[in-house]
């Protein structure tokens, strides 16, 4: 690793209250994110993978303070931003941005592309009108779009183009850290690679740090330096890419990886799939002990009793499992 | 607007410089009629609201006062046979205008104007709505500038139709000359602002909304009217009109307060105004169908050819139905100050009112039952009386109106007590009273056994009214159902009395005849009178001079109204 951590997340939890009944009484909470801790080094890409509903996106949004986290601590560039509010929070937003999953929905349909990209500039900079326009054209150019498109509306573009606009928008304020929340999930496969390559190029050019959230293990393998695996609101394993793919330790990681097809037909033929039994439990009512214990092929009595600790192993690997030594 | 302001400024200046400072000294008079005036030409509208609002501006030769007595208005005396004003053969009447009468525009009123008024209304294409006041008028001639003679084609024992009462005011020839016949509706300016002799002149007319008036600078009594301006506001409903006089005091006079008696007395308790009532000739009555309304008769339904009614032709049934009704309760529930029980279809003026039928005033269920028992109507298994397979089952119709529906419900209950079954029906007033030939629901067609409504007559003379129940007035397909004899009552004796009255001139004799006709109708049960209905109005306690009048416009003496000291 070596480089200093640009982002440090410690014990981050995000619970959503559940209301029921006529008087909307609080009857419980959904533990969307539960005690998640990790660091991201400057210039690094951390992949965050897991099944849908496991809390990946919530983690991303909570880090960017789009939600108010229930517990834990978030440090950006050494500064605690957990409890920032109002203007202080808005100021810090210039350093962290997000690229959203649905490029259609996240662009205001009534604004032109130019004004969508320029809006953060209006808010956070004192550029003149002409300078802003130049910057917008520059950004459009940077994401591979014709700068003349600035006067068009989002609905006039294809999904891939819209995602580029979203990326241009995120880059407008030259952030240090970007959360990419499934940026390619809604795109055609043919477009996905283009967007991922664009993200990689931009990373090199602007020295960006990414938290890359995805359920697509092969795409994460392509872009991420390290990969964190999430299950039911908790991290189960975090390891450098190579280590994780060649030697997964956590039974859930193993099961996930066994589902990824191998490009080599010979190896694909002998690939052994681990089929998990049962459904993912409800985050409103997680099992006691290890979250994964209900579906784990190697779970023991202890797993159902005690929540496994997030332990650091050799080689920068973290695992939360009683069975891993 | 500027012009109006200027006018009133000039007028004010005139009054100020004038020694007769009393005219216009009492400020503004606010009148509310919950039906708004649509037009100020009574010859083009029969609506009471239109006639009464116009009565502030245009006037007849003579008014009826609140007792129904004629009083001279634009003349010095009422012409009679005795003073030579009415010819011996009863075929003409000569009116002599007072001296020095002026229209509000300053020109003199002449006999030519009076003659023109008749010509205007008698024009065949004009659709004159007061034509009945000019019935049998052959010609009206101006003998000289101030003398006008009305010639009738027949002997008229009561020649006071034309130019007497608010329905037949005199209009100015110069203004309406080009508005005769088919052109009448096109003269909007004249119809909205007639030039008259009355105490007020129109300054602004907003149809169906409000009339603004100011004192007539040329009014014949230099000291009158007391108010400088009048606002005649229309619209809304009777209850809120009553409230604006009795509770909020925003208005000085409210007309025709058909409000539940209880509510009205509560409002009056606020002490700002007084409820006044007066009784004319309106009687709420049940018409009894003497013909058979059975739908099976097809075209002959409810006609004389269709045959007599299966059971209402039995006098015992008609009497029993009347006896079962408690008229006091009906008054209490629906009319209050505005009604009193009556047993006559002709209850007023006093000289015509009979007392021979007053037995019906008290309810007597037992007597009614006995009558039916004696006549052979015995209760069937369901309690409804029957005889020879005919059940006493009545279809009872009236117009849609909450008081009428309450009355219907009460009557139904009383009739049930004596073993008569009643089916109630109500029809929208504009259909019920509208003479649409194609509608089966009009009161003329009378496709029911009993129907209820109010009728009255204008003025004080009942001759035409009583003639309504002669045989030739029976509505039928032959006369397009136009006829006023709804019960289809036909009695040669009665017709003879009608004929006799049309040749009798002496008032006492006429009164005796009218009473006799009334009694005949009542005792034969062609109609069952219920309520003698009066008008109820309210005026502010600060308003003096109101003499509530049912025989003429309620505003007939508005020139005398003034602020209380």
């Amino acid at each position: 690793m070596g480089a200093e951590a640009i982002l440090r997340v410690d014990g981050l939890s995000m619970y959503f209250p559940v209301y029921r009944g006529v008087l909307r009484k609080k009857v419980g909470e959904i533990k969307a994110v539960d005690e998640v801790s990790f660091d991201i080094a400057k210039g690094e890409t951390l992949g965050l993978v897991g099944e849908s509903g496991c809390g990946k996106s919530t983690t991303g949004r909570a880090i960017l303070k789009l939600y108010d986290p229930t517990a834990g601590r978030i440090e950006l560039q050494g500064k605690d931003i957990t409890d920032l509010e109002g203007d202080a929070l808005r100021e810090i937003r210039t350093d962290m941005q997000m690229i959203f999953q649905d490029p259609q929905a996240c662009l205001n349909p009534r604004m032109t592309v130019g004004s969508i990209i320029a809006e953060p500039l209006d808010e956070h900079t004192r550029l003149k009108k002409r300078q802003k326009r130049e910057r917008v054209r520059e950004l459009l150019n940077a994401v591979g779009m014709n700068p003349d498109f600035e006067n068009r509306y989002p609905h006039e573009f294809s999904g891939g183009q819209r995602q580029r606009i979203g990326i241009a928008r995120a880059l407008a304020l030259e952030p240090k850290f970007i959360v990419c929340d499934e940026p390619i999930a809604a795109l055609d496969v043919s477009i996905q690679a283009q967007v991922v390559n664009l993200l990689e190029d931009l990373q090199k050019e602007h020295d960006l740090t990414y938290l890359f959230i995805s359920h697509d293990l092969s795409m994460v393998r392509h872009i991420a330096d390290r990969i964190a695996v999430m299950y039911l609101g908790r991290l189960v394993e975090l390891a450098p890419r190579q280590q994780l793919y060649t030697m997964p330790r956590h039974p859930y990681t193993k099961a996930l990886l066994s589902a990824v097809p191998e490009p080599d037909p010979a190896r694909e033929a002998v690939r052994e799939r681990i089929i998990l039994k049962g459904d993912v439990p409800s985050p409103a009512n997680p099992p006691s002990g290890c979250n994964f214990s209900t579906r784990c092929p190697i779970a023991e009595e202890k797993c159902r009793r005690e929540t496994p600790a997030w332990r650091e192993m050799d080689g920068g690997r973290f695992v939360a499992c009683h069975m891993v030594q | 607007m500027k012009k109006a302001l200027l006018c009133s400024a000039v007028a004010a200046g005139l009054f100020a410089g004038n020694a007769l400072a009393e005219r216009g000294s009492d400020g503004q008079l606010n009148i509310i009629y919950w039906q708004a005036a649509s037009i100020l030409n009574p010859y083009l509208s029969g609506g009471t609201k239109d006639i009464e609002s116009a009565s502030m501006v245009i006037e007849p030769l003579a008014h009826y006062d609140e007792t129904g007595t004629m009083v001279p208005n634009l003349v010095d005396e009422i012409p009679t046979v005795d003073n030579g004003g009415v010819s011996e053969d009863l075929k003409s009447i000569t009116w002599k205008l007072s001296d020095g009468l002026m229209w509000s525009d300053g020109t003199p009123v002449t006999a030519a104007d009076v003659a023109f008024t008749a010509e205007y209304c008698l024009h065949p294409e004009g659709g004159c709505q007061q034509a009945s006041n000019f019935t049998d008028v052959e010609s009206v001639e101006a003998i000289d500038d101030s003398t006008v003679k009305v010639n009738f084609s027949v002997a008229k024992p009561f020649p006071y139709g034309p130019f007497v009462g608010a329905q037949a005011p005199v209009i100015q020839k110069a203004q309406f000359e080009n508005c005769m016949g088919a052109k009448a509706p096109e003269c909007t300016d004249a119809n909205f602002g007639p030039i008259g002799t009355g105490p007020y002149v129109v300054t602004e007319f907003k149809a169906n909304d409000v009339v603004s008036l100011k004192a007539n600078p040329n009014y014949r009594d230099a000291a009158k009217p007391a108010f400088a301006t009048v606002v005649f506001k229309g619209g809304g409903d009777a209850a809120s009109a009553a409230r604006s006089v009795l509770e909020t005091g925003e208005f000085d006079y409210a007309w025709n307060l058909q409000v539940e008696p209880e509510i009205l007395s509560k409002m009056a308790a606020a002490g700002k105004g007084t409820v006044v009532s007066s009784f004319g000739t309106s009687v709420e009555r049940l018409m009894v169908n003497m013909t058979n309304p059975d739908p099976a008769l097809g075209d002959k339904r409810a006609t004389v050819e269709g045959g007599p009614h299966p059971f209402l032709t039995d006098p015992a049934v008609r009497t029993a139905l009347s006896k079962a009704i408690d008229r006091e309760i009906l008054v209490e529930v629906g009319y209050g100050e505005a009604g009193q029980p009556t047993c006559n279809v002709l209850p007023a003026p006093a000289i015509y009112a009979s007392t021979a039928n007053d037995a019906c005033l008290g309810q007597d269920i037992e007597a009614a039952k006995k009558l039916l028992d004696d006549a052979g109507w015995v209760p069937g298994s369901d309690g409804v009386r029957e005889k020879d397979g005919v059940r006493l089952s009545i279809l009872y119709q009236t117009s849609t109106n909450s008081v009428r529906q309450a009355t219907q419900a009460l009557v139904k209950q009383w009739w049930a007590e004596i073993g008569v079954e009643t089916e109630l029906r109500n029809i929208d007033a504009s259909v019920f009273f509208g003479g649409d030939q194609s509608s089966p629901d009009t009161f003329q067609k009378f496709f029911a056994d009993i129907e209820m409504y109010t009728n009255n007559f204008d003025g004080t003379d009942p001759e035409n009214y009583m003639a309504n129940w002669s045989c030739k007035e029976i509505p039928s397909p032959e006369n397009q159902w136009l006829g006023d004899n709804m019960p289809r009552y036909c009695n040669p004796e009665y017709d003879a009395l009608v004929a006799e009255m049309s040749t009798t001139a002496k008032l006492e004799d006429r009164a005796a005849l009218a009473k006799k006709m009334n009694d005949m109708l009542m005792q034969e049960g062609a109609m069952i009178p219920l309520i003698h209905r009066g008008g109820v109005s309210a005026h502010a306690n600060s308003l003096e001079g109101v003499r509530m009048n049912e025989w003429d416009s309620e505003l007939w003496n508005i020139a005398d109204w003034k602020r209380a000291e």
Partner: protein
Amino acid sequence: MLNYTIRRLLFAIPTLLVISFLIFAILDLAPSDPTGNLPLTIPPEVREKIRLSLGLGEPFPIRYLKWLQQFFINEPLNMIEQWFGITIGDSENRLRVQSWATRSPVVDLIVERMPQTLWVVGMSYVVGILIAIPIGVISAYKQYSVFDQVGTFISMVGFSVPTFFTGLVLIVVFSSTLGWLPSIYDTTHKVTDLASFWFQVKQMIMPVMVLALFNASQLSRFMRASMLDNLSQDYVRTARAKGLKERAVLLIHVLRNSLIPVVTVIALGIPQIFGGAIITEQIFRVNGLGQLLIIGIQGADIPLVQTLTFIFAVLIVLFNLLADIVYGILDPRIRYE
């Protein structure tokens, strides 16, 4: 957009002709009679003459064609003459649409009624909108808060309690008991100075508030729903992620987008203003177009009812078109060809 507008307007012509025919036919078939409300003392033969003088003697198609001619040719010609002070052809004998009850041109009556209706009903619409939008915005932004609950309750009350009741309550309280406000609207009142302006305000307060409450309760619910819809959109989160101020997020992003459907609803509701508010106008005696219509209906004044209803139909068609066009302008995703 221009082509689209012209095409829509052309299509509206046959539609409106059919509507005018239907209105005429329905009014003709309705069993009401212009002489029905006259006193019974007016004899039947006089009634028949009155009917003939109103033109009822002619067959239905002739009457309809006459009305068409009067409304579509004579009235516009008359209007042009009045505006430019010129005379076109035989204007003396050109028959305008005449009301049976007042025997005056219907269009003049309508023009006379316009000011009070536009003032009172129009003002209530404006006030209603001004109340509804902030309530809707705050209710949605603070969904399920006390403000939202109270707002919902008031909306339900405003919507479900009829105006004749709220009107009466206001009159009893402010006119009868307190004596602060006049219960009867003075249509002849002219505003010339501050005092008369104050009187105008006083006499407008009650009718305007009664109607505004009614209008606002509908619109605020609509505004709230539209806001909620947009608040949960992703672009709102994007806007927050951009580091915009919460005010800017709400006003620039959410409110503007939420207003699109609301503006359409407002435009569609404008013909109602011209229709007047029959009940409120009756209660306070504002005597606007609504009262004119109801009097016309009660008195079987068919030319008046026909003309008024037809004008309403025209307004509804036009404002429907306007709403569509406004939507197209406000929402770049909509394009009319």
